[in-house]
């Protein structure tokens, strides 16, 4: 922490919490991002009748070194971080992945011309975690 402080700007920053934030949490921290697609982009609107648009969302960003309760991460995540930093970088840092999902209802036309309404589990990411 002290070598970081050497690089600290001479004049104390106006907003201390912003200042310390750069040390505690990475800039592009692991979080949920929006993504909307329409099945016509995939040329599937011929057999997927509904919904017209679908927002699967996704998780992206760096995991803080001490994740702890913030992401509901198991202790293993910090262990993996220590291994990555102290022992073997090839192990790789913990990843930012979805922790919870919500279902999606889809109306499709089957190859035999029958029509099916189906509710699929885990089709929309609603929460992220570091694992």
């Amino acid at each position, binding site marked *: 922490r002290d070598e970081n402080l050497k690089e600290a700007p001479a004049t104390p920053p106006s907003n201390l919490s912003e200042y310390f934030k750069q040390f505690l949490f990475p800039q592009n921290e692991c979080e949920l991002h929006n993504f909307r697609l329409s099945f016509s982009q*995939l*040329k*599937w609107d*011929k*057999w997927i*009748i*509904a*919904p017209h*648009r*679908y*927002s699967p969302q996704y998780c992206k960003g760096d995991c803080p070194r001490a994740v702890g309760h913030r992401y*509901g991460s*198991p202790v293993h995540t910090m262990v993996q971080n220590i291994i990555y930093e102290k022992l073997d970088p090839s192990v790789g840092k913990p990843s930012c*992945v*979805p*922790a*919870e*999902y*919500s*279902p*999606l*209802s*889809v*109306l*499709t*036309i*089957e*190859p*035999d*011309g*029958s*029509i*099916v*309404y*189906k*509710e*699929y*589990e*885990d089709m*929309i990411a609603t929460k992220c*975690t570091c*694992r």
Partner: protein
Amino acid sequence: PHSRGRVVSDKTSGFLVASKDTASELNPLLQLPKGVRRGYALLPPLLKVLSERGHQSWASEAPRLQPDSRALRYMKRLYKMSATKEGIPKTNKSHLYNTVRLFTPCSECQHRHRDLRKGDVHSVDLLFNLDRVTALEHLLKSVLLYSFDTPVPISSSTTCTCRLSVKEQDFPGQVCPSISHSLALSLRVEVRKRKWVEIDVTSFLQPLIATNRRNIHMAVNFTCLMGDPQHNTQLETPIDAALVPPSLLLYLNDTSEQAYHRWNSLGHRRKIPARPRQGNSPRVDPMGDKGKENSQGKRASRRR
């Protein structure tokens, strides 16, 4: 690779379950486990897209038979009642199904005749092919869905009698086979600007679907009298002129991993399991250690 296969496989194998042709195309290891025929509507094309490299145009699926427009209109209406605009399933308790399949008859022998005493009789032999129903989809309710082609006069209520009979094929390919067992249903239909009449045939079809019958032949006689049957008023408009061959609607509970199970979300929100879920792994005992011995005893007796 071996350990990766071991840790990841049972979590993703459910996801990578696909119709036979797609799976073997992708990777011979992805053979379907026995009994799980045909993938789920979404998976085969998703896998096909994933198996294509680069930015080739997303191959649209093989041409599909186009469904009947009335059937499509009915299913879009069902979709609006069951899900939000974004496609999120609505959580109303009565809605236990997570799958609804609508089949239009693949062949029919129609007979129409007018019987002055009984009004118009609309009888039709229907063949429904239920190949798309997977082994993991359990029947909750089945309905014959009649739609009226022309606006039925709404002068008075209509009393309809429907006689159903299942036919056994004496030999493969026989178009209009003989009758094996039948059922008469009398239902009073308030046809007031209604486009659809639903006839519940669950008890009738349950034994057939439970025995995995894939081709269902049935003869349906549909007789309707307008107005009050006591005065035996004639049909103002022959109702059978308005009736088109019925579709078969199956409300199902898909018990597979990919399907959404309401009680999972009502009971507790599913999270990423710290380790892949092993089937019905026994829940952690809320009593912690002190209740270990009797909870183990309990668990053993439950398992027995």
